């Protein structure tokens, strides 16, 4: 392309003008705005990038670690691009009535927004300053069922560590095999592992492991919650993970570092178990945890003759005990846990059905899983005990 044309394009870029439905625009801004950088350390990152071309307007937001790019139909009068303060635009569009909105780029990064009798100008920044967002690579794409991934994330994300540590525990590990899909997350105290069989990933031979940062999982969770699509496209390269859900693309920088060898810690011989209803266990733990030590949230679980007792005590709050009836005839056992860890699990399974609590002794990892054989999912939750 001759330099003159390039030049002209830039000039016309400075003259972007579109009309778009307020409803469509707001939907896409909502899907995008969560990745906008909240701190104002790098000013350009608190802007949306708007790019008008053909019959669509593309919206991009990024915080450098991740990005979301989406689009919606628009009447493009003059193709071009601009940046607009994200928070301001989003809040303003929300307050407008339904109908068409016209967005027009003026001189010096000023942008005019008109809708009905409302007329607003706000100032963006030079489009050239907006960072380059990686393009979805069309090669080596894996199709993943939306429903499966949604479940996998919901049942592991809470176990991701908040702490920095020598292992990379600030994400969940996605394991793709030719016929199954699994996800695992841990914070070093507990571990959530879920596997879905009966899938088909023709492109995968052997096993593909991908560590996905928590932030990306959260974004993915909302994208998956807000789509009609049955499957999403996943791709990756050396530095970036890509998820395409419908017309929206999420990118995330890869986590560097090592995920621990989780298979080694999965308990094998936890042969003492009780089965209780999730609801009952949840209610008991919630009651009893009121009286647990503030810092550790420690509760004791005692299984003995046809009973599960949940108890707590702390110098400050007092003490409390709940008893749940359940068949048990093996040796009695007392083991302590952080109540918050159990609550997390019970919430993740929607507090439904029955759960099986499996123990070995007071020092070894306990395992909890839903007692629902019909499920395609194999879900296990491992918690290390607490000595109280």
């Amino acid at each position, binding site marked *: 392309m001759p330099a003159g044309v390039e030049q002209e394009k830039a000039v016309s870029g400075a003259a972007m003008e579109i009309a778009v439905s307020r409803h469509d625009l707001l939907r896409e801004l909502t899907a995008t705005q969560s990745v906008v950088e909240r701190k104002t350390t790098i000013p350009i990152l608190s802007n949306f990038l708007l790019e008008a071309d053909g019959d669509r307007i593309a919206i991009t937001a990024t915080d450098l670690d991740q990005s979301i790019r989406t689009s919606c139909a628009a009447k493009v009068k003059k193709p071009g691009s601009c940046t607009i303060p994200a928070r301001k635009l989003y809040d303003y569009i929300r307050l407008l009535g339904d109908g068409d909105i016209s967005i027009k780029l003026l001189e010096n990064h000023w942008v005019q927004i008109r809708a009905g009798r409302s007329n607003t100008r706000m100032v963006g920044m030079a489009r050239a300053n907006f960072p380059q967002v990686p393009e979805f690579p069309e090669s080596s794409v894996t199709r993943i069922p939306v429903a499966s991934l949604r479940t996998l994330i919901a049942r592991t994300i809470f176990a991701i560590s908040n702490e920095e540590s020598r*292992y990379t525990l600030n994400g969940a590990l996605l394991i793709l095999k030719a016929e199954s899909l699994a996800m695992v997350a841990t914070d070093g105290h507990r571990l959530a592992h879920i596997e879905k069989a009966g899938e088909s990933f023709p492109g995968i031979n052997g096993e593909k492991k991908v560590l996905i940062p928590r932030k990306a999982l959260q974004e993915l969770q909302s994208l998956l919650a807000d789509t009609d699509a049955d499957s999403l496209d996943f791709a990756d390269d050396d530095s970036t993970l890509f998820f395409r859900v419908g017309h929206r693309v999420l990118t995330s920088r890869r986590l560097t570092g090592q995920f621990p060898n989780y298979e080694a810690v999965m308990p094998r011989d936890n042969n003492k178990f009780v089965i209780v209803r999730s609801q009952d266990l949840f209610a008991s733990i919630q009651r009893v945890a009121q009286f647990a030590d503030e810092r550790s949230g420690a509760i004791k679980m005692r299984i003995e003759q046809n009973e599960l007792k949940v108890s707590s005590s702390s110098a400050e709050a007092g003490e409390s005990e709940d008893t749940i009836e359940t068949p048990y005839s093996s040796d009695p056992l007392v083991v302590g846990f952080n109540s918050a860890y159990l609550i997390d699990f019970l919430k993740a399974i929607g507090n439904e059905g029955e759960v099986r609590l499996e123990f070995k002794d007071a020092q070894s990892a306990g395992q909890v899983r839903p007692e629902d054989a019909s499920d395609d999912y194999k879900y296990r939750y491992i918690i290390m005990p607490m*000595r109280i």
Partner: protein
Amino acid sequence: MGRIRVLSDQVANQIAAGEVVDRPASVVKELLENALDAGATRIRMEVEGGGRKLIRIADDGCGMSRDDALLAFERHATSKIRSSDDLLQIATLGFRGEALPSIASISRLELTTLPADQPTGTRVEIAGGKVLSVEDVGGPPGTTITVRDLFFNTPARRKFLRAETTEMAHVTALVTHYALAHPEMHFELHSATHALLTAPPVREATERIYQIFGRDTLDQLVPLAAERRFEHAGLPEPPPWRRDEDYRPPDPGYLRVSGFVSKPALQKLNRNSIYVFVNQRLIRDRLILHAVTEAYRNIIPPTSFPVLLLFLEMPPHEVDVNVHPAKTEVRFRQQSLVHDFVRESIRATLMKARPAASFVEALTATPRAASSLVPAAGEPEMPGSDPVAQPEEAAPFALSAPVPRPEEVRLPFSGSSMVAEAAVEIQPAGPVPSPASSGANGHACSQQILPEGAEGAPSLASLASLKPLGQLRESFILAVNDEGLWIVDQHVAHERVLFEKILRERKVERVNRQRLLMPMLIDLLPQQMAIFATLAEELERNGCEAEPFGPHTIAIKAAPAGLAGTELERMIFEVLEQPGSDSQSENLETARTRIAASIACHAAIKVNMPLDPARMEWLLAELARTEHPMSCPHGRPIALRYSWKEIQRAFQRI
């Protein structure tokens, strides 16, 4: 002829002088003590040339007869004790009969003395130990001793003297101490050109502190008063069959402490501001210093020292003052009892007072290396005073009392209130049981603490009423109550809360520990490995289970609840840091608090961490419940206050 000769008295006196009098301040000390022993109520001192040129001390005490006046210069001549039995019951400051002859042997001395009930007095002139003249004189009752040209005949000693200003500073500090110990007496100290200290009689120490140092220093101090009965332990008693009908077991008497301790905000770089008096005698005692340091441990930084005025009183037989000629060292008969009593009294006082630091004061409160308490206000240069050379060891020391106006000396601490407050039971002392306390009721010592002043000294007791407003940069909690605006460092506040909780739980072996899914492997250096070996058990008791995993690695299998990931690792490295060069000598209790402090620090809420209002309220409430909410285990302040008054003043509303 043998080579051994008995030394002449003069030489013997000079040798003794070497021990008793090493600098002008020691001369002042001896003469001052003599005046006090003589029952003086007014003492006036003049000191010139840092004491080398002139020291004159005039008292209105009992005076001496002509015979006594001459005898006083004989070695070991004293009116204060008669037999060695009396040594067990020394109630006077002097008793060795060494001071006057020693001083007289190394100076030109003039003594004028007149007993109250006699018409004529005596004047004695002595130079280098030789009596030059004795004559009758008239004048007011009392004794005046003038010492000129100190060390004129001992050039060796003279060489060791410091600059005049330094010597003067020592003299002034010394007189100040005695003035503090005797508020009921009149003290004056003059240099050649001006008055350094003028302190007319007041009723009590508080008023004296105010007189000498002013309001600011007094505001930084918390009054202390406590007492306990002495144990019977070891007091000689006749066996039952030798006791008379009306035999009464000897009264063990009371151990009392009173005085002032500084709030944690006031910190010094050395021990020079710790003044300890035992039965009104100024002493430097390692045992008491140790008790003081212990009391302030985990309240002020280990490198800082508090300011203290401690007056210990005990029956004379409980303390041996005859340890050193300078009489600044003592030996307590029941050492650990005295030690623990002092430590616990200070702790209890601080705990009760919960002194709050003002933000404005904290801004300027860097520990100072002052050689002693210095009046807070900058000293205006006195007209006609010599331009003073900068002394090498301390800030220029010049004390001039604010001209006292009686009505200004009204203070909230009234004499009658000393005993008004209900007795406060001291908690059983720290984890190291002292021999004296191991017996039954060993620690049933009750103590009385001065009540706060009516106007309400700033106190952290009101922490409980704080309402959080929000955070400053997600690091400091801003909170208010009627007293003003408070700024609370969220990290150190939580650190203090956790620290006390950890120590509490550790004591009853109830530390919650979370087992780790995968052991955390940490590589250590050989010396860290060695320290680990010594601390492994204590770490284990604090919830950190670790064991060697190969020659230079440890595997952590369980961690104290609330400590995970990198913070756990950092805590381990911090604890295994060489604690000084003498890791061997770190005692168990120090190790224990060090580990607790380290766990607390790493498990605590960090700065740059957003807290919701409920969490802030929780933290403030927890802080209010701690024993020492004023500073974190490393001694940094936790909560600072802009008082309502300060705020009003700053906005020129008052």
